[in-house]
């Protein structure tokens, strides 16, 4: 099971919590909106990503899992 980080750009309001919680997976653009790593997440990444997902106050981040 692999996972990727995804964002609903309509729900996202550029709060930036994700970049604080998972700086190695998320950077912010010129206006403070998240640019996500495109890579498949390994176990350690996935824990970090999970923290960013649960920490998003807009519930805009998600983990896309494919079997």
């Amino acid at each position, binding site marked *: 099971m692999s996972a990727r980080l995804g964002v609903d750009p*309509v729900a996202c309001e550029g709060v930036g919590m994700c970049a604080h919680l998972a700086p190695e997976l998320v950077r912010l653009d010129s206006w403070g909106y998240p640019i996500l790593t495109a890579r498949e997440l390994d176990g350690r990444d996935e824990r970090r990503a999970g923290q960013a997902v649960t920490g998003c106050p807009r519930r805009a981040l998600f983990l896309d899992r494919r079997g």
Partner: protein
Amino acid sequence: MTARPPVLHLASEPAPEPCRPLLEAPVRFADDHLGVLHVRDHLDEHRAAFGRRPRLSADEVLGLLDATALTGRGGGHFPVARKWRTTRDAVRATGRTAVVVANAGEGEPASAKDAALLVARPHLVLDGLATAAETVGAGDVVVWTHGDAHELHRVLAGALAERRAAGLVEPSVRLVSGPGRYLSGEASAVVRALSGGPALPEFRRRPAAVEGVRGRPTVVNNVETLARVGLLARSGATGATGAGTSLLTVLAARRRTVVEVPATALLADAARAGGWHGAPPQAVLLGGYGGSWVPWSEAAGLRVDEVALREAGLSLGAGVLALLPAGACGLAETARVSAYLAASSARQCGPCVFGLPAISGVVEALVRGDARKADLRRLQRFAGEVSGRGACHHPDGAVRMTLSALRTFAGDVERHRRRRPCAGVDHPPVLPVPVTP
């Protein structure tokens, strides 16, 4: 009323694809008003010209779509067979009926081909819609129009009434109008509006073909695509597959002309057919306002063929050929269009809300002679940050158009940057830009 045969060829020739199965002659728009069009197929004329709509099995229809590789003409050129199979499979898997939408929401300011087609051949579009509904297993069939397209609404309501009166065996159709904004014809905006929400694009984790209107599998097809399905279903009888031509809107000298050209035609042929005369244009904006500027010296010899254009990194998009005369300034046109696209954002996704005005601001500064090299580097960075980061493809198109202008009008960029006089600054505007709220 005279019957018009759909197949026009000499008896001595081998039966070729008719050269203009959808439009008999170019349709010229004097302004934004469709009242110039009196031609319209009533149901009896339509049947005399094309015959009755054959009822084919889903597998027969999908086989015909495969054989002709028909792609969507709303701008995306996605294979129709793949979209319909996805929805049919989702209907089978979930046991829920599908929603099928004929999208007549033509938001592209330079485009008029869908309007021209709907006024000329409403029943061919509705035939294709019925075939689509039967093929995927629809329980709800909709024609979506912009609320300010009163003429189209009247034509469609009239055509639907004729079909009901004639007792045609087909699913019943709802006519639904949304706002007349640039983005309200975007497929996910249509799905969202039909689900009870605003007509604004939305982010979807699963494609609408699987999970669309109120969670039901949903097909949204452009009306030209459906007219081609209407022809294709009859190909056994008429030989016209409907896949061999394209409807284009040619913008020449501030007039829009809708032409139908075969895939073997060159862009130069399409420009002539669309009323371009005299000295060649300096460039063309191909596809629409989210398309690409191409120098005419490169574009003139390209074929009106999506496959060939894709190989050149281009696309017919929504079928727009906006021709820029030699005396006009491509950067000034780009500044106006990019400001319009920024103002047309649905204002939902941050990179689009902030990025498009930032990009448009640099282009406007460049036109005024106020942009430095650092500003142009900033523009390139913004472009990279905006592209691909919206719920819909609106920001991608705006970026593509602007970057293609910087390449196509590279000489003008230098002249403007060094504040040398631009011959085109006082040229009247070429591309129509509606007033945005």
